[in-house]
């Protein structure tokens, strides 16, 4: 194998500057750097790095080095080391002068040979590590470093930039093993293997990426799923009162008793089920934590968990924290119905749980009674748990929300999760809860007790007031959202999108292909830059991103003026191709 064909850079500039004296050199100037990981950045060559991540051949998802797109192009380290086909990127290496000043302080463990330059087709390296298939991006970096020292030795140091590129220990070891004969600095490599393997599947959230672009272009943000209006006064006042009353110390780990009973009352009203507030309700920092606690407390490494794609992006990452194996059943337009046959074939004796989200983010689908009954019978037959994420249950417009826990035989195997944030437009308060039978609650509480230990006390008091809101609150909430939805849906149709019906949540999925973009990410970037509106590309919500490339998600949890403005921009500036 000709390592001259490979170039691997893994570093942070800080690390380079501080650590470089740990490496032994035979002569000054003999430095090169490794870079594993900007495969995804490189090949697409387009400006938007989110675009790169999607429009180019990906590493296999099961590869040990699942690499992620680089952070903002402004990130200092990345602009130093990022290489890509686009001529707009510049390389800058640590200056030759600085390198020249490096001493040969450290003892080499093995005799140093003059190492070759590594640059060029690092895809070759990746292929040889067996880390990716079908990677077609090839590029030659020699022209970039021809200005620098052609003969270099190695600093095999690995780091990550401030967001998101992680390398499994296996990858690092493999890279090191390849380079060892050429005299890399193993101790330095080892120092940087500090992040856990469970982060292999973590990536920059698409929301952050889109938000940054949105701010840059002054676009109207219909991407992020939280309101730009605030919660009701009576709830905020309850929180203020609680703070003034001194309710500022640790709450009981499983929740303030008053809130637990309010949750029980509300659940009874919604489902008819009677549950025990002490033993069957756990208050968490948002539904996000309820999901994390359920997974960590109830899933063993290697268990299979079935998800419905598209799914909220944190499910996959959290399941990988629990070391679960994920199987996804795709919900397809136009009605995103559950394919029972697919589901039946996915369930195996290793299936531990099925995760359902209804009303569903991002499609707006609501699971029908028939679908839930099918799922229920499969679960009972195969002794499978259900994790039900029902945060949008009060935003059920076109259909009745049904909690799967209320179906016969299901309560004993279901964890029902919900939160305050969406219903009361107070997403930043982080009040959520999980309802489950005692034996499942126990596992969940174990995880919760070390994840956050207890939940924000004053907000819990306010939440108990909120949950006792009269029916009129919920009716008004629905009315308001229906009006907003009408503005958005009509506007999207008029602008030329293919709009799929959304029965619940405050999201609408549309097909963007009438506008001629290759995929959802390209379309979203175009929408931000040329039209001034933000939507979320949905390919991130699938295990196989290809399945989502025609679809994007809009939200209508914004005030009417904002929605109208966004709609106008789209009607004016979007052109069908």
């Amino acid at each position, binding site marked *: 194998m000709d390592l001259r064909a490979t170039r691997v850079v893994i570093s942070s500039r*800080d690390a380079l500057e501080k650590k470089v004296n740990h490496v032994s050199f035979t002569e000054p100037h003999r430095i090169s750097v490794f870079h594993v990981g900007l495969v995804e950045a490189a090949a697409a060559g387009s400006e938007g790095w989110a675009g790169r991540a999607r429009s180019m051949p990906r590493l296999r998802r099961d590869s040990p080095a699942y690499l992620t797109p680089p952070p903002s192009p402004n990130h200092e380290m990345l602009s130093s080391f990022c290489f890509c086909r686009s001529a707009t990127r510049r390389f800058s290496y640590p200056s030759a002068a600085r390198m020249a000043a490096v001493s040969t302080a450290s003892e080499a463990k093995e005799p140093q040979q003059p190492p070759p330059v590594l640059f060029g087709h690092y895809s070759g390296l990746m292929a040889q590590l067996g880390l990716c298939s079908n990677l077609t991006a090839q590029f030659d970096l020699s022209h970039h470093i021809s200005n620098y020292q052609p003969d270099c030795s190695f600093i095999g140091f690995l780091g990550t930039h401030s967001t998101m590129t992680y390398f499994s220990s296996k990858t690092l070891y493999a890279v090191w093993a390849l380079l060892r004969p050429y005299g890399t600095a193993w101790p330095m490599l080892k120092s940087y293997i500090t992040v856990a393997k469970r*982060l292999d599947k*973590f990536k920059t959230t698409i929301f952050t990426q889109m938000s940054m672009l949105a701010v840059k272009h002054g676009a109207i943000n219909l991407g992020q799923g939280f309101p730009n209006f605030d919660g009701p006064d009576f709830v905020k006042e309850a929180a203020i009162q609680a703070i003034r009353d*001194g309710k*500022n*110390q640790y709450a009981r780990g499983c929740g303030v008793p008053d809130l637990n009973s309010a949750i029980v009352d509300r659940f009874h009203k919604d489902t008819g089920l009677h549950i025990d507030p002490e033993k069957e309700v756990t208050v968490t920092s948002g539904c*996000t934590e309820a999901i994390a606690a359920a997974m960590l407390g109830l899933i063993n490494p290697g268990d299979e968990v079935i998800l419905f794609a598209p799914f909220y992006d944190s499910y996959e990452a959290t399941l990988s924290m629990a070391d679960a194996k994920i199987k996804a059943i795709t919900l397809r337009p136009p009605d995103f119905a559950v394919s029972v046959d697919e589901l039946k074939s996915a369930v195996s004796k290793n299936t531990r749980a099925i995760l359902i989200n209804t009303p569903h983010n991002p499609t707006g689908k609501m699971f029908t009674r028939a679908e839930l009954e099918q799922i229920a019978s499969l679960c009972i037959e195969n002794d499978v748990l259900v994790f039900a994420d029902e945060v949008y249950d009060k935003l059920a417009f076109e259909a009745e929300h049904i909690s799967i826990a209320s179906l016969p035989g299901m309560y004993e195997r279901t964890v029902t999760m919900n939160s305050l944030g969406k219903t009361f437009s107070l997403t930043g308060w982080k009040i959520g809860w999980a309802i489950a039978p005692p*034996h499942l609650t126990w596992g969940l509480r174990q995880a919760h007790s070390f994840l*956050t230990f207890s939940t924000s006390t004053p907000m819990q008091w306010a939440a108990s007031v909120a949950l006792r809101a009269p029916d009129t609150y919920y009716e008004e909430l629905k009315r308001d959202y229906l009006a907003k939805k009408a503005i958005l849906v009509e506007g999207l149709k008029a602008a030329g999108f293919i709009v799929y019906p959304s029965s619940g949540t405050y999201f609408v999925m549309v097909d963007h292909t009438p506008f001629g973009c290759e995929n959802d990410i390209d379309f979203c970037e175009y929408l931000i830059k040329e039209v001034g509106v933000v939507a979320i590309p949905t390919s991130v919500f699938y295990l196989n991103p290809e399945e989502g490339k025609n679809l994007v998600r809009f939200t209508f949890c914004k005030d009417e003026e904002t929605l109208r403005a966004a709609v106008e921009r789209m009607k004016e500036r979007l052109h069908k191709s």
Partner: protein
Amino acid sequence: MEAKLSKASRALNASPIQEISHLAQRCGAINLAEGFPDFPAPPHVKHAAVAAIAADLNQYRHVQGICDLLAVKMKQNHVLDFDPLTDFVICCGQSEAFAATILATIDQGDEVLIFDPAYETYESCIILAGGIPVYVPLDPPYWTLNVDKFMRSFTGRTKAVVLNSYSPHNPTGKVFSKEELEVIAAACCQMDCLAITDEVYEYITFDTHKHLSIASLPMMKERTIITSSLSKTFSVTGWRIGWACAPTAIASAIRNIHIKVTDSAPAPFQEAALAALQSPPEYFSSLKADYVAKRNFLIKMLSEVGFQVHNKPQGSVFIFAELPKTCLLSDIDFVKELIEKAGVAAVPGRGFFHGDCNDQTQQSRYVRFAFCKSNDTLSAADQKMRSCVGK
């Protein structure tokens, strides 16, 4: 259905402290068991929270200002340079910061050293991440670092050392001296391990002791993760605002985990944190002075009723006192009696010891008292203790 629980969660047990708390509540006992204050939070901080709620700062947010202020404090207090944009992760309390740190750094089979005595939270967290907690006993009566035992606890699998000097998970109030920290630091560097610190009591240190973070020792900044929170400094343990501070790469990993575990710390309290962190120096000095007085009061009281207080705590709000020589009861029985007869609750010390590292009988001779209570509460406890104990 029990089979549906994960193996990891089944390995964990219910907390003995909770049981005592329930008993204490039932008997209406004065609570010197739990480590949170019964006096109000400072007004300027509460006002800031109220104002934030009223100003509609109630949606998901990340308040960068907190990181900026923390970076300044790191520089002021420890002469450490951290980048506010990349090196801090705001979490739901130090609890979440610690959990996220463990999940971000500990893989299956990694060993983590914990100094004993210590509360069980660290252990649970490590086990759930697939790691192996390894306890390193400190030597009574002063809970000094036993260098030999410490060095022998390291193996090829050791990934991190947890330092809980300024933490409620350290019942003894012992703070590592500079020399001890240097030993620990040298070992971390030599064995290429991380140091994870829990510094929630960083402003509650006594005598001439200045809070020294191991990260400020040579070569340690790049391998130390500092976790802390608002809770104890500002008497708002229920607000859940904490943070992890680490070198960029590790902070990034922690942030990733945090985003999946809770995504954001409560928004209005993040805003209030800005006001809190900008409190004038007088706030911190009077906080210290108040706690010193409380500590001394409680030590006097305990000594005069017969407890052996070998180690005057140099930090945190707990006194780990050994039962009077004449008392033949075990720690649990003593505490139960104390609740029932004297109406004062404390925590039996055995729950803080692990393995057979210390003498078993030794382990059941300690009781932990908290002094983060109002002066009225402490006086009332004093009266009750004197009338019932040491007769």
